[in-house]
């Protein structure tokens, strides 16, 4: 096994850090200096510490909110689909809009025995056509790509998480469209009764639906065959089929995957959408990068604040030493105080993030951006998870410990007599 010197160095550093943190925790737990001393010291200097606390709070808020955006994006993917459905697309295509499923392939597949049937004996399967269209946004926000989905009459039944909230479903054979309520809020001419033009034809909006916080919230639906006619397509993009049980599902997927002529791939619908998380990645990266960069500034700020605290309490420290308190206890105490300071900032930051989320949810504010997966608009909301709150707090505490380490060392090394004489 080759010994990578960089890896060894990294491992050594991690070991040292973990060791120090354990020592710190132990010293604080067994410390004779009461926690209230540190708390009171932080609070009494609130005027000079509030700026640092606020700075750390903002770092934490930025980190959490950006990651919450990413989490929101991932959630709308993860939340999509019915576990009984199988999604069939062309092998090798990454977006539904560039996938092609031929008409005769659909004819073949729809009568496969593994596909469930409704009470009339019809197979529960939808042949969809996914087309990307370009529509103008409300409030002069330019134009954006939107996913228009043509569905078969079974399409609504296959997707029970999508519910009509206003108006009615489209009638097959008519140039009618049903729009996601969240999309209607963002694009012009999408109120019920209005018309917009695409593919050279006018489409009438007859209803709004709620996608149930899934990827369908970013779509508009119409009749599949009408769509094929308007957008001049011979074939479909994908098939969505219901299976009665997991056994049938497995057999169906196997059947389709192994058919070399058709060159299709089949997944559980939930799996298919769960994989579509590429858009979240750069946002997560941005969140971590920004927070780390901002926290360097925060570390300096914490350092400054704690140096000032040590400077102001030099006589106190000397007194504690005279009374018999050891140096390492003083070190741990001041390091802890830095962590407490930053921890307060962390709590504030988490609260701000939660407040932002609450406001967005209360006022039904959503964000939209270009999805890398569908190449069209995707709508999402902040999603501040408990995991993110924990990460934010850890971030803050780490900043506090790093920032106050040097001042704490200085406090511990103050010579007793000189400290007693200081102003």
């Amino acid at each position, binding site marked *: 096994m080759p010994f990578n010197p960089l890896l060894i160095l990294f491992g050594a550093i991690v070991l040292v850090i973990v060791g120090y943190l354990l020592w710190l925790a132990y010293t604080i737990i067994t410390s004779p200096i009461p926690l209230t001393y540190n708390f009171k010291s932080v609070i009494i200097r609130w005027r000079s510490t509030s700026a640092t606390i606020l700075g750390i709070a903002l770092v934490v808020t930025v980190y959490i909110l950006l990651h919450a955006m990413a989490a929101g994006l991932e959630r709308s993917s993860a939340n999509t689909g019915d576990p009984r459905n199988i999604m069939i697309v062309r092998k*090798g*295509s990454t977006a539904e809009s560039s996938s092609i499923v031929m008409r005769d392939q659909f004819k073949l597949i729809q009568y496969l025995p593994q596909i469930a049937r409704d009470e009339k004996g019809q197979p529960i399967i939808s042949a969809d056509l996914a087309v990307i269209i*370009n529509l103008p946004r409300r409030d002069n926000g330019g134009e954006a790509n939107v996913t228009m989905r043509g569905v078969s009459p079974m399409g609504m039944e296959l997707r029970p998480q999508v519910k009509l909230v206003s108006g009615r479903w489209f009638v097959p054979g008519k140039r009618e469209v049903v729009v996601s309520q969240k999309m209607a809020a963002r694009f012009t001419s999408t109120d019920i009764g209005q018309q917009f033009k695409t593919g050279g034809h006018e489409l009438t909006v007859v209803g709004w639906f709620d996608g149930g916080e899934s990827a369908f919230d970013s779509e508009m639906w119409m009749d599949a065959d009408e769509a094929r006619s308007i957008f001049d397509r011979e074939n479909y993009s994908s098939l969505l089929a219901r299976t009665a049980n997991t056994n049938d599902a497995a057999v169906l997927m196997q059947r389709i995957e192994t058919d070399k002529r058709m060159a299709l791939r089949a997944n559980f619908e939930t799996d298919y959408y769960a994989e579509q998380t590429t858009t979240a990645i750069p946002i997560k990266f941005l969140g971590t990068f920004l927070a780390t960069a901002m926290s360097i*500034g925060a570390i300096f700020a914490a350092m*400054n604040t704690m140096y*000032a605290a040590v400077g102001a309490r030099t006589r106190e420290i000397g007194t504690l030493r005279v009374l018999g308190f050891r140096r390492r206890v003083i070190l741990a105490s001041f390091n802890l105080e830095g962590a407490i300071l930053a921890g307060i900032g962390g709590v504030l930051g988490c609260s701000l993030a939660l407040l932002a989320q609450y406001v967005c949810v209360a006022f039904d504010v959503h964000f939209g*951006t270009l999805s890398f997966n569908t190449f069209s608009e995707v709508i999402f909301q902040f999603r501040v998870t408990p995991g993110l709150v924990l990460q934010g707090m850890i971030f803050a505490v780490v900043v506090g410990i790093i920032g106050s380490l040097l001042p704490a060392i200085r406090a511990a090394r103050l010579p007793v007599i000189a400290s007693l004489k200081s102003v």
Partner: protein
Amino acid sequence: MTVSTFILKNALRNKRRATLSILSVAVSLFLLVTLLVALREITTPAEGAGAELRVAVRNKISIANLLPAKQLPIIERIPGVESVTPFTWFGGKYKGEQGMSFAQFAIDQTKLHGVFGELKLTPDEFKAFEADRNAAIIGKITADKYKLKVGDKIVLESTVYPVTMEFKLAGIYSGTPDDRNMFFRQDYLDESSGEKGMVGMWWLKVKSAEDMPRVLSAINNAFANTSAEVRAETERAFQLGFISMWGNIKLLVMLICSAVIFTLLLVSASTMSMAIRERFRELAILKALGFRRRELFTFILAESFGLAAIGALVGVGGAYLLFTYGDITKMTNGIFPSFEVTPRIVGIGVLVAAVLGIVASIMPSIAVAKMSVTEGLKTLD
């Protein structure tokens, strides 16, 4: 000793405090500049030479819809049009990577120079591109990233067409604002994909700026009420359209920049305030000696400006040096083909530092103004 050396000695009294303040300012300004540059790169379309004369023609439904190849002769016949090429997105995955790390387009190899004049290849490379059917040219940035050289074989699996195609690298180009793309021949694509007769977009060059508006409307009208209506727009309009698809991102980055600036001001102002408070004693003595409030304000302002200025020098200056002389493209693995620190951005950084210098001196100045001499002198003990 002059007044300025007095101020200087004062400021350097606590070197550590001064250094930390400067570093804090510098780091935040560096971050601010980085954010502004990144924002500009993302939202301002890069202008290659010749961009003002180029037109992008896409399917009116959306760019994701294809156009029939038979539109070509109609467009070429429009007066004012100099050269037209198809421009078809291939969406290929390279070497089994999960995502696409560079874009590939199928074009008409004979029209390459006519439409994208700024793209530089050696005459031999141009010839090779026109000679071999499976020839491809690739931008220098991507070539460097994957260490490709002329003659290398490139295999790409398309996510749009049901094919995997093999190409031979005929040349490495540079000179465009985005030297990351790969171009190959539309006829080779037609043949391999079996999908003859459809292209992704048209890109064309008009003869002169005066021809532009006429050409645009001519193209739009030529295909009105056909099954493939088009949207013809200038290159700039096309790029801006792309950018507007990003939606709230610009707003988001603005908000973050504001948060950064706010944090910066807050933290640095409080740091400097703390420093001043330490010096109440000296300031009280000065006041007792007869220095007027106005002069004390000047001392404080000079010190806070000085610290902010040095912080700006380190932060903004450092960012400028790093991004101008460092290879950002390599560092970000090709995400940013360019990373330019414009004079405007430098100006913003300096302005923020100046505001910081002023803001940081406000609280201490107020405190000094209100301070009575005896109170300040009491801290002597």
